[in-house]
C-alpha cells in the first residue's frame, strides 16, 4: 500500500471530499460534467508523457502542438477549401513530423530532450502565431462525422458527457496494457532505468524513444483537435503552459522524472487531481489570481510525500 499511485489516490479522495463539503456545487451534475469535459484534453497528453518520462525523456512542446494542430487543420479547411478529412490527415502528418524531429535529434545527435523540445516549443508556437497573424480563426460551424467523433456530446441523466471521455478511457486502457503487460512496456521501463543495459540486451532504445516522441506529439495534436471542435474555434495561443501542467499531472501520480518508474493509473489519478484542484479552489472562493499558488503548493506537497515514501521503502 506504499505504492505512489495509492497515496495519490487517497489524497484525491480527500480533496474531493473537502471540496464537496466546502461547496455544495462541487459535486453537482453540472460541475462534474464540466470537469469531465476538460479532463480528457490534458489527460490524453499526460498518457503519452507518462510513457516518455518512463523511458527517461520528456516533451515540452506538447502545449504548442496542442495549439498548432487545430490551427493548421482549420486553416486548410476554412481558407484553402480542403476537405476536413484530408485536413485532419495533414494535421496528423504534421504531429508525426514534429515528434520525429524531436526524437531523432534527442537520440541520434544526443542533445537533452529538455533543450530540444524547448526549442521545438518556440518553433511550433511561433509558427501558430505567424500563420494566423496572432488572431483566433473564425469559428468552426460545420458539424459532421469528425466533430461528432472527437467532440460529440451525450447525456446520461443529469450528466452531460463528451465523446472525448471515451477517447481518454480507451487510450488509458491501451497505455496501461502497453506499459504493464506488453513487451514494449518492459523495454520502455528498462530504457529509462538503465539505457545501456537495455541496449546490451538488444533493445532498440533509440527507435522506441523516437516512437514515443511521435506518440506524444500525436496525442497532443488529438487533444488540441478535441478542444477546438468542442469550443468550435482554434486559437494560436491555445494550450499555452499545458506542458508543465501535464508534467505535473504525471509526476504527482507517481511517475519518476528520472525515468524507469511509470504508472498510468497514477497519471489518471494525477489528471483528476489537478482538474479537481483547479475547479475546486475557484468554487470555494480562492481569488482567481491566487490559485496558482495553491496548485503549486499541492503539487509540491505531493512530490514531498512521494519522496518520503520512496525513502522509507528503500530503508525497509
Amino acid at each position, binding site marked *: 500500500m506504499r505504492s505512489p499511485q495509492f497515496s495519490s489516490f487517497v489524497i484525491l479522495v480527500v480533496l474531493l471530499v473537502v471540496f464537496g463539503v466546502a461547496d455544495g456545487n462541487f459535486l453537482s451534475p453540472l460541475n462534474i460534467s464540466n470537469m469531465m469535459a476538460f479532463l480528457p484534453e490534458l489527460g490524453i497528453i499526460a498518457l503519452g508523457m507518462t510513457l516518455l518520462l518512463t523511458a527517461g525523456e520528456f516533451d515540452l512542446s506538447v502545449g504548442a502542438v496542442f495549439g498548432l494542430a487545430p490551427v493548421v487543420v482549420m486553416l486548410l479547411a476554412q481558407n484553402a477549401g480542403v476537405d476536413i478529412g484530408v485536413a485532419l490527415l495533414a494535421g496528423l502528418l504534421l504531429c508525426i513530423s514534429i515528434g520525429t524531429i524531436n526524437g531523432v535529434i534527442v537520440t541520434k545527435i544526443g542533445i537533452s530532450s529538455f533543450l530540444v523540445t524547448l526549442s521545438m516549443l518556440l518553433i511550433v508556437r511561433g509558427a501558430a502565431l505567424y500563420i494566423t497573424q496572432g488572431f483566433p480563426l473564425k469559428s468552426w460551424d460545420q458539424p459532421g462525422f469528425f466533430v461528432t467523433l472527437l467532440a460529440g456530446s451525450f447525456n446520461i441523466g443529469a450528466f452531460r458527457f463528451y465523446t472525448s471521455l471515451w477517447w481518454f478511457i480507451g487510450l488509458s486502457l491501451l497505455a496501461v*496494457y*502497453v506499459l504493464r*503487460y*506488453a*513487451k*514494449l512496456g*518492459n*523495454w520502455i*521501463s*528498462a530504457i*529509462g*532505468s*538503465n539505457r*545501456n*543495459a*537495455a*541496449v*546490451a*540486451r*538488444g*533493445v*532498440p532504445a533509440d527507435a522506441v524513444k523516437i516512437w514515443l516522441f511521435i506518440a506524444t506529439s500525436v496525442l497532443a495534436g488529438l487533444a488540441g483537435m478535441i478542444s477546438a471542435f468542442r469550443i468550435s474555434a482554434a486559437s494560436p495561443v491555445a494550450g499555452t503552459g499545458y506542458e508543465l501542467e501535464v508534467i505535473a499531472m504525471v509526476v504527482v501520480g507517481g511517475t*519518476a522524472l528520472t525515468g*524507469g*518508474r511509470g504508472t498510468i493509473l497514477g497519471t489518471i489519478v494525477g489528471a483528476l487531481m489537478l482538474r479537481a484542484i483547479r475547479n475546486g479552489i475557484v468554487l470555494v472562493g480562492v481569488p482567481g489570481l491566487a490559485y496558482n499558488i495553491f496548485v503549486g503548493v499541492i503539487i509540491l506537497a505531493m512530490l514531498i510525500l512521494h519522496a518520503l515514501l520512496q525513502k522509507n521503502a528503500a530503508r525497509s
Partner: protein
Amino acid sequence: MMQEVLRLQGLQKSFGSVRALKNASLTLKEGEVVALLGDNGAGKSTLIKAISGVFPIDRGDIYVRGEKVSIRSTREAMDLGIETIHQDTSLAPDLSIARNLFLGREPVNLKWLGVFAPLDLAKLRDAASALLKRVGISKKLDADALVSTLSGGERQSIAISRAMQFAAKVIILDEPTNNLGVEETHGVLRFVKEMRDAGHSVLLITHNIHHVFEVADRIIVMRRGEIVAEQTVADTDLLTVESLITGADLSALMKRAQ
C-alpha cells in the same frame, strides 16, 4: 581437435585520437576458458564490446565457427550465440529480477502483435524461479523483487544466470568478480567451469591472476591496444604472467634482488 568457435583478425578501433585497439587477433575454441589480461586501459573492454556489438569496429574481421560475420548490433551478437556480461552495465534496477532475466527476449503470447504482444507473465516467473534455483544463489530470491533491492553480488549472479539461460556458444565476462564477496566469487568461478564442461567457450577478463590459474586454460595478454602474449596456463607461472601484463621483466628483477 577442438573446433574453433570465434576468431578475431586484426581488429582496430579508435575513439578520436585514442587508439584503443591497434591490431588485435585471437582465437577461441570450443569448451575452453581463455583469460584476457592487461592493465587498466589496455583495451580489454573495448575488444569485447566490439565482439558483442556495442559499437562497430573500424577495421578487421570476425569469424564465428569459421564463417565471416559482421556484428552491427548487440542483437546480432546475441543471435550469433555471443552473450556478454559487461563490466559497467548489466541490469535495469527498476525492473524485477524476472523481467531483467528475459529483457530483450521476453516470452510472449500472441507473437504476431510484435512489440505490443502481451508478456507471458506466468512463464516469465516460473522460468525465472527455476533459473535462480539452478544458479544456486545463496539466499532465496523472489523473481518479482526489484533489482534495485539486491546487493552487488546478487546482481552479478543474476546477470550471469541470464547469460547461462540462453546457453550461448560464447560467454564473455568482463571483470565478473569485481565487488563480490568470497562466496559469490567462488560461485562465479564455479559457473565458469560448469559452462566449459557443458562445451561453451568462455572469455574471462579479470585483474585477479589467482582466478586465472584456477579456471583458465589459456591466457591472452593485452597492452596498449595490442595482444602481446599468448600462453597456455599449464606452461606458465604467476610471475611470468605478471611481468607480461606490466611489461617489466619481474622474474629478472626478482633474481637480481636475491
